[in-house]
């Protein structure tokens, strides 16, 4: 099975930004331009997360999303501030292939996952989990790593699978943006606890980190942000490196 290599854009419209620990934003560029750049480098997917929509409780900015989708002939996932079936529908019409949900599903209405899966199909529903490590458990955070939920990450992962989610995007509040490697135990635990694909994010600082994650936790995909944004490597280089190390990736 080929591990998917996904470019993740954390967007604070109109810019892609890169927070460290989900804070301290730095502007990187325009989403449409970066998405196109990563597409041309050979990304398997682009994941676009509006990181402030839930936090500021504002509407999803659809124009920016449509502009980004226009540049792509690969799957395009979109998340951030999704609250209704109508939001999902509008996102699909603007060019999204998957919709990622977190805050609203965790804090207010997990049934949105069931409803979305029934209408749009499981494969189109991604649940974004922001995990925070405590002594002997991981807690789901929301609103871009700001708000606690008391929900255990592994039980929530299993619950969203039951509810019909087709994929989990696993982010880690502690390691996001630090480029010091992934939380391997977290990744392995979540991958093994569900049958649906898990895409792991937060932590890639060098090529070895990605290889180590894939070999240890066997995620379906790896989402990379900082490493690409700062031009430390290209997607093409990531794939060549993984292939040379015996890990299957797409062309």
């Amino acid at each position, binding site marked *: 099975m080929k591990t*998917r290599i996904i470019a993740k854009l954390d967007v604070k419209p109109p810019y892609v930004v890169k927070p460290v620990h989900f804070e301290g934003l730095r502007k990187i560029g325009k989403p449409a331009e970066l998405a196109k750049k990563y597409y041309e480098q050979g990304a398997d997917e682009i994941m676009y997360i509006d990181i402030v929509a839930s936090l500021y409780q504002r509407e999803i900015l659809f124009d920016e999303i449509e502009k980004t989708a226009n540049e792509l002939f690969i799957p*395009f996932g979109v998340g951030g501030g999704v609250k209704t079936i109508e939001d999902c529908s509008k996102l699909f019409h603007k060019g999204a292939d998957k919709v990622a949900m977190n805050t609203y599903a965790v804090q207010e209405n997990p049934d949105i996952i069931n409803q979305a899966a029934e209408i749009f199909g499981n494969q189109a529903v991604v649940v974004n989990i922001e995990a925070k490590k405590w002594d002997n458990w991981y807690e789901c955070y929301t609103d871009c790593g700001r708000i606690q939920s008391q929900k255990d990450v592994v039980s929530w992962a299993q619950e969203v699978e039951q509810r019909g989610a087709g994929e989990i995007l696993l982010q880690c509040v502690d390691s996001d943006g630090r480029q010091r490697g992934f939380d391997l135990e977290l990744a392995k635990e979540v991958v093994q606890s569900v049958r*649906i694909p898990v895409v792991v994010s937060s932590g890639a600082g060098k090529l070895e980190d990605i290889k180590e994650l894939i070999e240890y936790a066997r995620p379906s995909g790896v989402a990379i942000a900082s490493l690409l944004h700062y031009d430390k490597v290209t997607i093409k280089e990531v794939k060549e490196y993984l292939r040379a190390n015996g890990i299957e990736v797409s062309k």
Partner: protein
Amino acid sequence: MSQIIGVVNYGIAGNIHSIKKAIEKAGGNVQIINHKDDFTNVSKIVIPGVGSFKDAMQELHNDDLLNTLRKEIQVKPTLGICLGMQILSTLGFEYGKTEGLDALKAEVKPMIVDAKVPHVGFNKIDVVNNNKLLKGLEAEEFYFMHSYEVVNYTDIISLTDYAGHKFVSSIQKENIYGVQFHPEKSREAGIKLFKNFIEL
């Protein structure tokens, strides 16, 4: 004569935007089909697919497209994509048992495989019957994103291997084609497939 490809827009669940863009990139003209009268102008039909089998059939019915679509696909070259391929079948089993368009003698069932489901990502196709749609694409990878598969034994044109499980990745019966993958999400290989479809 320039031909127009009709992309069926049913209800809230289609990803018509991506498909329209990819067909245009391949050099085709697109008309979005919102109403049964829109079929008159088009020479070929694309049925997109994001959604569930049950919902798709319900939406086609609600939008009063179902009967016309059934007739149109008998005579015009048609390409079903992902769920659009699945609903060409006789029966679907996603969220209960639902009747499909019945253009293919096939049923749509959950993938039973010892690996993660949905099957998501780029994968190869193994062309088992030469055909115009997949011409020149034998060595390419395409993007898959599905939990259900079409079960058919007579009209297969390509198979795909997922964790040791072989399933139908493309199908053809006369003028009707279906692909389980998403050509509109499969880089240049997908654009080439649309070119082949336009040139049929």
